[in-house]
Structure formats: structure tokens, C-alpha cells
């Protein structure tokens, strides 16, 4: 299967990158933007074909490595590959 992990900053955590992108878009003339937040996208090609098992596995990866649970949240999407 293929797992798509989205890692995003928790609410309230300052996002300097998002802030800078927001400003840069503004000075490029893109108005009407309220907020920009930047996160990570991690694509994992797994051998596992059982969805439940794959999910459990990727969840563990997130907790252990992919996300920094002190400041980040994650979400997992799975698709057959």
C-alpha cells in the first residue's frame, strides 16, 4: 500500500515558514489570504497490503519518528498502490 502522512503544526504553535510565505505572497500581490501554514508530506510505499495493519504500522512510525508530538499532529491516508 501507499501511505500519505500529513504532518502539521498544532494549533497555536508559531509557524515562521507559513508566516514568511504569507508575507511573500502578499508582496507578490496575492491579497485576501488569511493564513498560511506549512507542513510536511511523507509518502511511504509499504509492502503491507492489509489496510488495518498498514495503518497501525504507519501510526507507530508517526509516533516514533515522523511527527514531533510535542508540536505536531499527523494524519494518515492509505491507498492501494
Amino acid at each position, binding site marked *: 500500500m501507499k501511505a500519505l502522512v500529513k504532518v502539521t503544526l498544532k494549533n497555536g504553535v508559531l509557524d515562521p515558514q507559513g508566516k*514568511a510565505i504569507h508575507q511573500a505572497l502578499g508582496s507578490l500581490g496575492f491579497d485576501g489570504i488569511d493564513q498560511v501554514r506549512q507542513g510536511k508530506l511523507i509518502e511511504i510505499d509499504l509492502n503491507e497490503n492489509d489496510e488495518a495493519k498498514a495503518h497501525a504500522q504507519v501510526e507507530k512510525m508517526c509516533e516514533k519518528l515522523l511527527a514531533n508530538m510535542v508540536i505536531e499532529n499527523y494524519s494518515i491516508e492509505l491507498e492501494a498502490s
Partner: protein
Amino acid sequence: MKAAVIVFPGSNCDRDVAVSLKDAMGCDADMVWHGDAEIPKTDLIVLPGGFSYGDYLRCGAMAAQSPIMKDVVTKANSGVPVLGICNGFQLLTEAGLLPGAMLRNANLKYLCKDVHLRVERNDTIFSRHYTQGDVIKIPIAHHDGNFFADAKTLAQLEDRNLIAFRYCDSGGKITDEANPNGSANNIAGIYNENGTILGLMPHPERLADIQLGGVDGKTMFSSLVETLH
């Protein structure tokens, strides 16, 4: 000779390169704010090292959109020499003045250290005081200096002799061990077709003073001054 150093928010080697330029030229460079529309008449444009816009999003990406960059591109296209050092090199690729792109260093770490470079050409305004094949010592200091270009672009760079410097060992051999960041073909710096634009990751301004441990970088500035004065 006159030189202009463009200062972006987050540039931090602007003063350093101005010092080297002054040593070589005998006069101050113009420090030009990124928000200006035009660069005063100059013989050389320098895009300095640093973290323009914090290196957020991609190194050099936001700086490439700065108002001053229009004039940089215009002047570069009309033949005014441009030197992009480190963040300046990243910016040149983002602005499309040089091909390729810079990825995160292969070991994912920021690296600040002296490296050896092999001088691939000495027939440009930047390099005429070097000897071709010379091994010189210049520091690197970057997180994203892993030069990437697709196979076709890389072949063009090689075929047209547009490689300026390559990472090498102290004996001049181009090896994987001597490649500090994973750059394709050990590329540390490249020229445009006409040899008027140079982008390189190492910082020549950092070893242009014997008290700092070497003067190999100074040679680049003296080459420029001799040619452009």
C-alpha cells in the same frame, strides 16, 4: 571598478563580501536594498550568502521574487557580471539565471568547514588568476548545497564546459568522499554560457585574509578587479 552587493532580508554575508571587494578594489561596494527597483551603474553584481527570508520554503525562493531581481536579470542578460555565493547561488537557480536546483545536503546536516576545490576553468573574469586544475581551499557553510540538475542539463553543463569548481580531495581527485553534500558530479559552482555569471556554494570571501587562515578566495576578487577595472 564598481560593485553592487544586493542585501535581502536575512542576508548575512553581505558585509563579509563587501570587505573582500573593498580589499581588492580599494573602494566601497554599493549596498543595494532588495526593495529598490534599480541597481546603480555597476561593473559587478554580487548576491551574497545568508538566509534570505530565513531560507524558509526553499533557499532563495522568496528573494528571487524581490523587486530588485528584475533589474538583476536585465543587467545580467545585458552582460553585467553576476557573482552568487551560497545563498546567492541558490537564488540564481531560483531566478532561472543558472540551471539546476539545490537540495538538502545528503547527510541532512548544515556543514561549515574548509573544502578543497578543483579549478575547472581559468578563462573567465572570475578565475583568470587561478591555474586550471589548481586545488584551492575555500570554506562551505550551508544546509542546502546539494546541486541537482536533470541528466540532460548536467550533460550540457559538462559538454559546454560550464563547471567552475568541483569538490575534490587535497590531491585534486574528484571522489565521493570529497563531496561534502552529494552534489551531482561534485559540482561546487557553475557558469552561464558566456561565463559572466558564476554561482558557487563555497565562500571565497571567507578565505581572503591570511589571519583567517588562507587567501585562496582572494584570488577570485583580484581576478575580477583586474578584468573589470
